């Protein structure tokens, strides 16, 4: 897989769905990345071990893929670091306020047909589209 083709997003999506399913069965929780990570930052969270192990696996799996396949290693940053800092703060705050991100609401919640997740997913995609539209006109 040296060249990025239509197979990349299809295979990648299937893997993400299968990984989420496996993590759900083993942890008994909805394994949205923002929730898995965010709850590591709460002192009272009882099940920190699987969360930490899952996230280490995620980082390691990605690192191995960047190394193994050129199509996975494609990386084109578009934003200056100070914008990334603001974006990080907003993503962290928003995902924990709204109870999920692209994986928890977008993949798991939508996959189970949960109404709140469908609404959340429509909202964050719509706002992100408007944000990109405005950014491209204001910042350039």
């Amino acid at each position: 897989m040296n060249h990025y083709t239509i197979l990349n997003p299809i295979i990648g999506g299937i893997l993400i769905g299968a990984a989420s399913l496996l993590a759900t069965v083993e942890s008994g929780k909805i394994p949205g990345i923002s929730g898995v990570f965010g709850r590591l930052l709460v002192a009272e969270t009882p099940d920190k071990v699987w969360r930490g192990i899952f996230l280490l696996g995620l980082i390691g799996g990605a690192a191995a893929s960047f190394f193994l396949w050129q199509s996975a290693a494609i990386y084109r940053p578009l934003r200056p670091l100070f914008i990334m800092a603001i974006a990080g703060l907003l993503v962290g705050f928003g995902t924990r306020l709204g109870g999920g991100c692209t994986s928890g609401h977008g993949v798991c919640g939508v996959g189970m047909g949960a109404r709140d997740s469908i609404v959340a997913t429509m909202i964050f995609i719509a706002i992100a589209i408007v944000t990109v539209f405005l950014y491209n006109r204001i910042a350039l």
Partner: protein
Amino acid sequence: MNRGRLILCLLAGVLFGVGLAISGMTDPARVIGFLDVTGNWDPALLFVMAGAVSVYGLGMRSLGRFGNRGLKLPSAAPGPLDRRLVVGAAIFGLGWGLGGFCPGPALANLGAVRAEALVFVPLMALGMFLAQRIFKADR
């Protein structure tokens, strides 16, 4: 949690990271390309979501129907459609459009020690900490 389950959680994490990287979702230009509907639109994210949602949805439905042998599955009951959900999703969408990173890809890019991830992830953690401090971890 026993060792077997922890190993399978590690495997799930590895598969998730491989999936993110192969799908191209760790590339902020591809994510922003999907969000840039009036520009040079890149549909990749749609294929990723379609694949992931189908596999997860079909899997959960089959497990719920056939696999009930001591399996502890999370409740499929949706949470409330409240102001917290709407405002949180909107703030997340704003940050996602600004940076082109959502939490999974941001963490995955730590695996390549990329500058954007090194800046983004600690501030994401701060944002999460603050939201959970002020509004509790459960929505």
